[in-house]
């Protein structure tokens, strides 16, 4: 039996950019492929949305192995954006998601500013795509050593270009990196460039060294750190951005393992959450976290999720 959210008297629906979603819990890009594998365990159409693994213009082999190392309460990964390319993705993965009635937010990535625009353009008029998440923050993308998300101008260039290549009504989310001095500066820059919302946060750049070989464990040497270990960093980033931009829609993510963890994000200012690395531990996690949040709200005597969003900001409520 595929797990589906339990019936609840609590209103768990949310508004996010121009979207209305029945559940506030989404998958996280790179932790759910394109939904098909998870649909063996949960009914993928019953979660808030499927955020797909970042897709690029061309097929991509990704990095050599080892691509992964376990870390305290987390993991380091350097997959290198392995993927089928946008054409094959639309033909197979999106077609499957549509047939299942899933709500899909497509994560896109590019090697340069133009490529982001080309990938976005391919998604014009494709049914079932309810939003685009722009992965400007993947630390694995090698762009002459630059990461778009770490430079407010480069980040804005990408969002600008994507904005020009999609319809005005298509919600665009910029996924931000925490590896910056002031995340609110990047947030303001991408919102000005046309982002409708923000995905906060991507992985933190990290390294694990094998103490037998004395060499980095990952073939790519560095990788993205994820999992519960990074949760306090993520909650802090959501909180700071909410303070700086009181009305911007935020998808919060980073180490969410339980409903209680998700509640931290909502209180910090997230309108929705993505569950990522935890899915590797519990393939049912997106539905379980939804149920746990509903139970916590019910235990608090609340009628809707909306009542706790921004609760940590006394000046906003």
């Amino acid at each position, binding site marked *: 039996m595929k797990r589906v959210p339990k019936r609840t008297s609590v209103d768990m629906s949310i508004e996010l950019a121009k979207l209305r979603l029945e559940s506030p819990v989404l998958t996280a890009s790179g*932790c759910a492929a394109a939904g098909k594998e*998870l649909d063996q365990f949960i009914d993928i159409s019953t979660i808030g949305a499927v955020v797909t693994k970042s897709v690029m213009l*061309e097929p991509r*082999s990704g990095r050599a*192995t080892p691509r*992964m190392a*376990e870390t305290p309460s987390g993991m380091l990964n350097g997959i290198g954006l*392995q993927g089928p390319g946008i054409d094959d993705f639309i033909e197979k993965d999106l077609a499957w998601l549509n047939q299942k009635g899933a709500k899909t937010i497509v994560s896109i990535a590019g090697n340069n500013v133009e490529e982001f625009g080309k990938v976005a353009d391919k998604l014009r008029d494709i049914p079932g795509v309810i939003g685009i998440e722009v992965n400007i923050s993947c630390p694995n993308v090698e762009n002459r050593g630059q990461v778009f998300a770490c430079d407010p101008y480069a980040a804005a260039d990408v969002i600008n270009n994507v904005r020009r290549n999609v319809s005005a009504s298509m919600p665009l989310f910029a996924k931000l990196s925490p590896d910056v001095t002031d995340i609110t500066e990047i947030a303001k820059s991408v919102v000005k460039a046309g982002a409708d919302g923000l995905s906060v946060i991507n992985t933190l750049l990290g390294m694990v060294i094998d103490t037998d070989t004395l060499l980095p464990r990952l073939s790519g040497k560095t990788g993205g750190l994820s999992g519960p270990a990074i949760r306090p960093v993520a909650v802090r980033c959501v909180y700071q951005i909410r303070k700086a931009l009181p009305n911007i829609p935020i998808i919060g993510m980073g180490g969410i*393992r339980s409903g209680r963890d998700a509640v931290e994000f909502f209180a910090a200012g997230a309108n929705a959450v993505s569950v990522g690395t935890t899915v*590797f531990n519990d393939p049912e996690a997106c539905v379980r976290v939804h149920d746990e949040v509903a139970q916590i709200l019910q235990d608090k005597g609340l009628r809707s999720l909306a009542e706790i969003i921004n609760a940590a900001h006394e000046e906003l409520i």
Partner: protein
Amino acid sequence: MPIVHKGTVVDNKKVGSYFVLTATAADMPKEFKPGNFVAVAIGDERSSLILRRAFSIYQVNDRGVYGGTVDIVISPHGPGTDYLANLKRNDAINLVGPLGKPFSLPKDPVPCVLVGGGYGAAPLFTLAEALTARGCRVDFILGASTQEKLFGMLEARRISTTLTVTTDDGTSGQMGRVTDALPEVIKKSNAAVIYACGPMKMLEAVANVANMHGIVSQTSVEESMACGIGVCMTCVLPIIGDDGITRMLRSCVDGPAFKGDKVRWDQVGKIPSDTWGAPDEGVN
């Protein structure tokens, strides 16, 4: 369909260097086919080790006193496997399975050689039963570095026409590698298919022997996985497709058993330059 099962440990006994852990598994045994594996969580939902560990299913029982159960073989060598080796009867254990593509079975009752390295032999016993049920002759080769790292000798002897044992140090059977013994067993049994599970270097060597004899091999690979269900993309290796194109395939969902002549053994841990989507120079 695989399931998530919050089960309990029924038994956990030391066998040589290994532990054979039996856990309740609900309906997993009904879905099980030889070559499937389970992904086992380390600790509870507060554990700091968040990645599941993958284990070949060694045995299943679908109507024991505890309902369905599965057996896995643990070789303690790190924090996750140490944790599992220390589990006691009635302790909680969380399994996802059955996962992975099963071994392909020959259509005709042809002779098969099964080669296991250390506890890698675990999935070969249910395979041997399935092959025997089809009328295939089964010959076993079990190898390890030393006697106490051999696994499943009694069972292999019971279910096979012949059993050959090799150890690197000569403490049991012939001194040497499984591939030292393999050509003779192929010849005597007139084998048409070789199945192998064990360390990657052993699988490569077995696949090479099979190729030299012009016979089919199926190798069940061991790549480190984060999820076991096909979403994390960490367990990839270069596999030649039926169209001749090499792709980085996931050992969890496209394997773990691959045809031995389709694995780019010398390129495992690299991205060959002719791989689908690879940079022009490949990745070393």
